[in-house]
């Protein structure tokens, strides 16, 4: 049927007329290299498109970045609050003040008795002399103590109960309170529990806030991609007319979402590190008053790495939602 040879010397598209069967559909390379080429094409064409309008892109990424930075900062704050209170939370010690007139032996006997109990992990005896020495070492107290004629400190026992499951007070606590030689038993369980509850509530609040802000970024990306789709309706129509699959048409928009996510994630990190840097000096001053028992905990490297990954996923998801809705809407077949 196609015996006719090409006659014109302008026919350089193909050297010889191929048979119709071979040309029913263009030969398509299958496999990885074709897949990779198509993705690279979408990746860079979407990036080029974003960089062609840097201000609009930056503005969108900034809005998203701030929305991401906010819960991150709260989480860091919360993490530090936990770190600060962690020392207190772990402290299970019961401080037992004996009556001032109790003899030294009474303290020793009580300590011995307590050590034999199975629910007591450790007992530390602090004599009035040791207590005074401790006070002396704390700055500012030495002068005041020199004025004292006698040692006003009582015998003190620091009892560490075995670790408790649940929030019940240790049994030893009630018994200590009934000891005749005991003046005061200090155990701040209720206060600690309250602190724990406040921290738990804060954490939940931050998570809810993070969820809401993540939804906001999703909408920002979705809306940006939607406008992008609308402004490129003609291009989409042409692509569909020349045989682009829905996946091919959608892909650059998904990459656009991923780019927005990456940019905003990077920006959120800049904000977080900036705030950390801006606060580091006053915070360190505050920590100095705690004798450096606590250090400011910033964003961990692994968490910092997770931020752009998560924001890229958010961007992709937002673009996915927008394309699912608006591509079908724009050009029904």
């Amino acid at each position, binding site marked *: 049927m*196609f015996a006719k040879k090409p006659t014109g010397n302008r026919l350089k598209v193909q050297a010889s007329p191929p048979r119709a069967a071979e*040309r029913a559909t263009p030969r398509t390379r299958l496999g990885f290299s074709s897949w990779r080429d198509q993705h690279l094409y979408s990746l860079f064409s979407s990036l080029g498109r974003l960089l062609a309008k840097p201000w609009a892109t930056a503005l969108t990424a900034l809005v998203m970045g701030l929305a991401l930075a906010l819960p991150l900062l709260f989480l860091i704050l919360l993490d530090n609050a936990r770190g600060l209170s962690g020392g207190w939370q772990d402290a299970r010690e019961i401080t037992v003040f004996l009556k001032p007139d109790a003899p030294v032996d009474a303290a020793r006997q009580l300590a011995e008795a307590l050590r034999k109990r199975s629910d007591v992990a450790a007992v530390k005896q602090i004599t009035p002399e040791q207590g005074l020495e401790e006070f002396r070492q704390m700055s500012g107290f030495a002068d005041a103590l020199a004025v004292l004629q006698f040692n006003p400190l009582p015998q003190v026992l620091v009892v560490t109960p075995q670790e408790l499951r649940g929030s019940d007070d240790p049994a030893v606590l009630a018994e200590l309170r009934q000891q005749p030689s005991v003046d005061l038993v200090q155990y701040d369980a209720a206060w600690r529990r309250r602190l724990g509850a406040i921290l738990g509530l804060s954490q939940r609040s931050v998570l809810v806030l993070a969820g809401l802000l993540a939804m906001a970024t999703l909408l920002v990306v979705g809306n940006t991609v939607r406008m992008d789709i609308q402004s490129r309706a003609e291009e989409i129509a042409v692509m569909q007319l*020349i045989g682009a699959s829905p996946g091919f048409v959608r892909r650059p928009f998904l990459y656009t979402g991923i780019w927005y996510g990456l940019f905003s994630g990077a920006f959120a990190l800049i904000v977080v590190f900036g705030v950390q840097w801006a606060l580091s000096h006053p915070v360190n001053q505050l920590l100095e008053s705690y004798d450096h028992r606590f250090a400011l905990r910033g964003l961990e490297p692994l968490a910092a790495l997770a931020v752009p990954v998560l924001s890229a996923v958010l961007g992709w998801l937002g673009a996915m939602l927008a394309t699912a809705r608006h591509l079908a809407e724009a050009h029904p077949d």
Partner: protein
Amino acid sequence: MIRFDQVTKRYASGHEAVHDLSFELAAGEMAFITGHSGAGKSTMLKLIGLIERPTRGHVTVNGQNLHGLRRGRIPELRRGIGMVFQDHRLLMDRSVYDNVALPLIIAGQSREEIARRVRAALDKVGLLERERAEPVTLSTGEQQRVGIARAIVAKPSVLIADEPTGNLDPQLSAEIMQLFADFQQVGTTVLVASHDLPLVKRMGKRVLVLNQGRLLDDWRPGGG
């Protein structure tokens, strides 16, 4: 190869663009569709690319009955059909090269193959020197030739064109039509809608004359 079997297309508005149309265009054959505007020329071409689906009847392209073709298979069908539009429908924000490369990128060709074929197609339409140009800097005739290069770059077996010379002067129109004739020479099935009857007659190819959606005449060269 293109075949219409008693094809009717009625739009939702009630307008019947094509009525009980039957004809067959053999593989490697070239034909013109002519008729007044509104005669159904564009609709006929749209039915071939499944831009529209017929209300009744069957359209067969390359042996494939489009009636049962699922939506998901439409892109594959269109990759086998080169389409040229009156307003060329180029992407104005991309270079000539990128426009012509698009069907090959969609088909997943390698970069080297794309470069080779795009240059060959641009050479064929005489625009090899303009590959880096923006389409807006080209004349209307040149833009249309870029549109043709894009349509043929993936070597489709069927080439359809809707008023490809609608905006061109007679000299350019004749050149464009000759391009289509050249593609037929290499085995492509070519169907061109045009209302430029004098030009169509000079080409000496088969002519389908439409009037109000019906086939009025099927003129073949030599056969009368």
